[in-house]
């Protein structure tokens, strides 16, 4: 394959990358174009469809995953740049016996969704929001959850679910 970039000094330039992604504690080998985002790698290559694509450009939050424990937009991360990091998706949130994470349960209890498409992103973001200590009040939760759009408009229920879970976590 002829690469115009090949002459870029001692750089090891690749347009196809062979990489290992550590998703939910499991290593996955894959070969993808360098251009592939973590989001597309998860969805189209690993068939981990729980992480959603709403915009592909950081503007909706549907693709929120944890990268070394921090929430990020999977669509704004190149798969190759996620190598060597611990990736947690909604599929990896459950407890050891497969039980739902308390925030997942709270979303059911508070009806924190309608269509469910933004939901995995909201939950991943909510888990991080609580862990960061940004769930002290409704206003604070709203501010720190504003990167996750819900077009069905379940916001008040999502905030209630996070508030209840954070309250429980404090105790």
């Amino acid at each position: 394959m002829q690469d115009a970039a090949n002459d870029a000094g001692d750089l090891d330039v690749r347009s196809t990358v062979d990489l290992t992604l550590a998703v939910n504690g499991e290593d996955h080998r894959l070969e993808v174009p360098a251009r592939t985002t973590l989001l597309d790698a998860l969805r189209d290559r690993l068939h981990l469809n729980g992480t959603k694509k709403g915009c592909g450009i950081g503007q909706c939050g549907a693709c929120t995953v944890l990268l070394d424990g921090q929430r990020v937009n999977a669509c704004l991360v190149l798969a190759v740049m996620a190598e060597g990091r611990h990736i947690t998706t909604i599929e990896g949130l459950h407890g050891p016996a497969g039980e739902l994470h308390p925030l997942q349960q709270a979303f059911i209890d508070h009806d924190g969704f309608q269509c469910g498409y933004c939901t995995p992103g909201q939950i991943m973001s909510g888990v991080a929001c609580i862990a960061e200590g940004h769930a002290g009040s409704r206003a604070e939760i709203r501010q720190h959850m504003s990167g996750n759009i819900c077009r069905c408009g379940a916001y008040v229920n999502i905030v209630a679910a996070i508030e209840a879970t954070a309250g429980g976590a404090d105790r």
Partner: protein
Amino acid sequence: MGVIGQPVPRVDGPAKVAGKATYAAEFHPEGLAYAATVRATVPHGRVASFDTTGAEALPGVIAVLTHENAPRLPWQPVEQAPVDPGGGEQLKPLQSDRILFAGQPIALVVAESQEAARDAASRVRFTCIAEAGAGLIFDPARARPPSEGTQESYPAEWERGDTEGALAASAVQVEGDYLQPRLYHNAMEPHATIAAWDTDGGLTLWDKSQWVDNFRDQIARNFGLDENEVRVISPFVGGAFGAALRCWPHVTLAAMAAKVVERPVRLELTRRELYTSIGFRPQTLQNVRLGADGDGRLRGIVQTAWGLTSAYEDYGEEVLDPTGMLYDAESAKTVYRLVEVDTNTPTPMRGPGAVTGVFAMEMAIDELADAAGIDPLEFRLRNYAERDRKKDLPFSSKALRDCYATAARRFGWEKRNPERRSMRADGMLVGYGMASAVWPAMRSPASVRVRLFANGTAVVRTAASDMGPGTYTSMTQVAAEMLDLPMERVTFELGDSTLPMAPVHGGSMTMASVGSAVAAGCTRLCQEIGRLGDAKDGEHPVETLKRLRRDSFEVEGKAEPGKEAETHSSYAFGAVFAEVRVDPDLGTVRVSRLVGAYDGGVIVNPRTARSQAIGGMVQGIGMALMEAGEWDERLGRVMNANLAEYLVPVHADIEELDAVFVESEDRILNPLGVKGIAEIALCGVAPAIANAVWHATGLRIRELPLTPDRLLMAEEWAEGMPA
């Protein structure tokens, strides 16, 4: 007590919170290839030439389709009322060199990966010849009446009484022009189709659809297939709000591509592409003239609407349906016109028509109440319509008075100081406003298959959809109650065109239509098992089955509307109250509180119904304060075609929302007594907020959305508004 009316949690909740609900783009048939589109850059004209060599040379590219090499499809005529426009001709992708709007798909690349397809699509070179089209400016001077065939739904002119005479004789009169911009559904799930042909020429589509039967019929006609050769599967829909009613051109493109490359193909649209690949709520200009006598009795209403349509299809909406029935006015008149623009065709968006019409009407009523010196709520009560004066029929049910009273009480309307710009808190101007809401309650034929097993479980199946309101859950409730089984023993399946026929999942009529069919099917099942087993009263059909040593028993259930529409007028109603805080310097508006009370008939599940209602409020806040497609009149394009510049509400925009349902049932409309809540929840929100902004600031801003620029540029503001 039965399970109907209980706030049970969603049956699909565990799947959705675990990321296990599977949406259209998420199926992975063996050998899947990926497609990406190339889009026209001129708003009207022809594609003159293609150079696809650069694209074809890329590794992983399987095919590049253009009108020059794409198969010609038979495209047998089909028009699916009510989702397809009544006039014009739909876009037939890659069937000719004609360009009808900027953003129209003119080529399609199929490749081994999504990345390769997108990369190759960007390397397809083409030249377009621009030609004069209908025009790019939404200019009412070019308006025309809707085409003949569609006038039953939205007549060009309608009048009751002598409006001009009544207006002339009115002691108080107001007139205003109201503009609602293009609004985009922007459901979180982008539209996507996966198409796979099998060896006997049958086609399976995994799609995002609010009406799988429609997609099946349309695709069968387009490809000259028998209906039963096409199967459409759509178990979960990531929001749609009307955008997934029609079988859009990309569905045909995916099926075409799969046919050509003889592999399953996925076509997933980008967010930007959604702005031209599906429809939108059309920009609509309205003029409202109202007259009342000295004690606030409405005498005349004249409402004129100019709605935008594309130049190739005649899309109209019932914007003016509420005009003649919402109030008890002596006379009323409506005029409806369409303005053609070279753009893609609009489509229904949550509360199509009524949401737009009520926005103008309810702002105008507020202005008239103010002109007459009467409290806005009191003014509406004085003109309460006990009967539909438009159809001259009684209402099958109407609890709007209750809605007003309930919402006003919960809101604390009595604390409103009638003086505008009189209320303040924390340095902000505070305003209270309210509006009425109305949406026709409808019903269509529907059918289901119910199977009861001797092990005490049941399965109910129908080709319905669940785009979020909770169809899975509420139908399970109805079936569980009718079969007298616990909910967890009943499974409800939907979203597959091989299942019994269901109507469009829109217009707030799924519960009334499909719910009635579920009830009918379950009742019939019980009766037939009872008859078969000669069961005595009180024997549960499961017991009868066991006694008969039958594993299971299945029936079809059907329900359809009777003649109630000839004898009654049916509507859902609502009252919305809004509190806003306006920054007196910066012109920013926040909605600090919204209270809505709704007459939606029997509420099958108060938990999911409330979610639907507050969801409507959120979209209403978006419509009032931030949403607008920014159309460039020179390029023929919506410029803010993303989710960062086309603004929809985020968490931080939503504070207190209170939605309640007043006691109501409508057994005339259907046996369950339901009316529907999806659309009514959006209706009335924007005018309530706009009226509150007026109360806070004294500014009547008749053009949505109420962004800081509109407030700051309003004349009064310039004259030293901050006090």
